[in-house]
């Protein structure tokens, strides 16, 4: 397992390097947008990775609610944290691209708004985990993840209707990608998916290790308390 972990990390590094080379050097410059279009090779794969991680979080949360396995909870923590990071990258790279191309940093478009609300929901999930460190936290967090997942389709439909009523500037997203662009895009999609999975896996292993350490410390302090209790017993008896 450890070996596969290291090999996959090396593979991820190579793929990311190759993807960056493809995106920045090989892929042709877009005719109307210019070099700023290259952000697309990072923006879309990040979004895809974030959504995959949020799905992982939902599955892990439901699995935890059903089987109550600590490993499912550790996976839920890892995927939510890493997902929020990738989602933040999406929300930052988006406006950087939008400003020169659309002329505005932000618009309340359906995809943008849904992504933002998803990000807000998962930040509140992380806040809950941070503010509550009792034994019930995994259950509470898993329930919140289920509520968040139920919310996303409603958000999507409400924005969809809101925006079809209030027309928006048309976004130049149509058309197909030139083959070298598609190649660079697919390489980066693969590289980012693998990268996201590997960071999540690393975080998952860290979480398991952290829990082992906490458990060991708790046992140690418990043993220490027992020893000191035994030592103090005769004293208290003689005092009586």
């Amino acid at each position, binding site marked *: 397992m450890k070996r596969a972990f290291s090999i996959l990390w090396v593979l991820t590094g190579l793929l990311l390097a190759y993807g960056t080379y493809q995106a920045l050097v090989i892929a042709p410059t877009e005719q109307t947008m210019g070099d700023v279009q290259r952000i697309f090779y990072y923006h879309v794969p990040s979004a895809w990775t974030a959504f995959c991680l949020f799905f992982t979080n939902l599955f892990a949360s439901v699995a935890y*609610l059903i089987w109550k396995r600590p490993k499912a909870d550790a996976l839920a923590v890892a995927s939510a944290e890493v997902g929020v990071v990738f989602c933040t990258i999406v929300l930052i790279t988006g406006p950087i691209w939008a400003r020169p191309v659309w002329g505005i940093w932000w618009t309340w478009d359906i995809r943008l708004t849904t992504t933002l*609300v998803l990000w*807000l*929901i998962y*930040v*509140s999930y992380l*806040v*809950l985990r941070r*503010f*509550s460190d*009792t*034994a*019930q936290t995994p*259950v*509470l967090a898993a*329930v*919140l993840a*289920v*509520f*968040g997942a*139920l*919310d996303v389709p*409603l*958000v999507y*439909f*409400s*924005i969809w*209707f*809101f925006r079809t*009523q209030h027309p928006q500037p048309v976004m130049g997203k149509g058309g197909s990608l030139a083959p070298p662009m598609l190649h660079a895009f697919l390489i980066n999609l693969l590289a980012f998916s693998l990268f996201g999975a590997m960071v999540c896996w690393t975080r998952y292993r860290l979480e398991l290790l952290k829990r082992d350490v906490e458990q060991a410390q708790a046992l140690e302090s418990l043993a220490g308390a027992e020893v000191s209790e035994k030592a103090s017993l005769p004293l208290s008896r003689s005092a009586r």
Partner: protein
Amino acid sequence: MSSLWDVTLATLVKDIRLEWRSKDALNSMLFFSLLVVVIFSFSFDPNAEESRQIAGGLVWVAFLFATVVALNQTWARELRNQVLDAYRVSPASPNGLFLAKALGNFLFVSLLEAVMTPLFIVFYNLRALGPAWQLIPVGILGTWALVVNGTFFAALSLRTRSREIMLPLLLFPISIPAIQGMVEATRILLAGDGSARFWIVLLLTYDVVFTTASLALFGTILHAE
């Protein structure tokens, strides 16, 4: 005493009696939303047409904040003397308890809305240009949307640190589609600007989805170890 409706009714009557004697939640909600109305009025100073456009947002934001004030007191009351622990070990149905709390909050927030709406109309010189009777289903569905999730999240954040801050942090992101539904429906009805049907259906869907989810998961929250 173990059937769902018996538990619901007993808890609801107890909560109403407690609230009737202390009036803690109602007084603080009323004064709080009155302050919001006055401060908004100073901040925007709108004319009649602008009022119609923004009043939906103002009304619901005021009610949302006031609801949080009430929700924070819902479960805190049961922590004293370990009442909640007693519930946990009793064979009473958890959903009965949840329904009673949600219905109680619904009642209190509806009372608040009944008192505050005339004030809003006076302060903002509102006159609905659309079918005003539709504001009633919007009000009922919107209030239930805030209250059902609010009651659930208040119970969820009960055992976290600084739970009074936690509640809005959990409740607001999830409530975004419901708030959009209420605000848009109210704006459309006040400005007479098309049909509010989609938003009423959205609110109804939201209510059904989250009432079901709350009832399905409340036992898990209550008995979480």
